[in-house]
């Protein structure tokens, strides 16, 4: 009985689709802001007259490795939660 889902039940499907797409866009943007800040710290120490190719490559790698890390953590978390349920219980408590 998810209250937000039941609340969405009477909503026009097109509006619903619009909201879902907007929510996804927002998540994408939020992550772009977060990664820009993090990778800026790692790759652009002293801002110069232009973004040199080394900083550019570092930024691209930084995004790729950050997503890798995120995927790796989620995957490993799912495996751990299958074997021992203690953590998930304390979380949903």
């Amino acid at each position, binding site marked *: 009985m998810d209250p937000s889902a039941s609340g969405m039940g009477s909503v026009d499907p097109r509006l619903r689709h619009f909201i879902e797409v907007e929510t996804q866009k927002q998540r994408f943007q939020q992550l772009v802001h977060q990664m820009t800040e*993090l990778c800026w710290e790692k790759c652009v120490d002293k801002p110069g007259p232009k973004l040199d190719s080394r900083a550019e490559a570092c930024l691209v790698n930084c995004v790729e*490795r950050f997503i890798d890390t995120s995927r790796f953590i989620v995957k490993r978390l799912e495996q751990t939660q299958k074997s021992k349920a203690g953590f998930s219980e304390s979380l949903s408590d």
Partner: protein
Amino acid sequence: QIAVANAQELLQRMTDKCFRKCIGKPGGSLDNSEQKCIAMCMDRYMDAWNTVSRAYNSRLQRERANM
């Protein structure tokens, strides 16, 4: 809803912390030693989360008992 939001918050903070700790200069792939570091980091972070959770819980219960 809250449990999901809570897990996402934990995930986000853990990813940020362990990425900063384990990835010095981001290279062309997540190499083996980086993966090991992330695995260890996330286990310790969840240990810390559980310890903090328990300590805070027991503190609140002690305070309620003293009221």
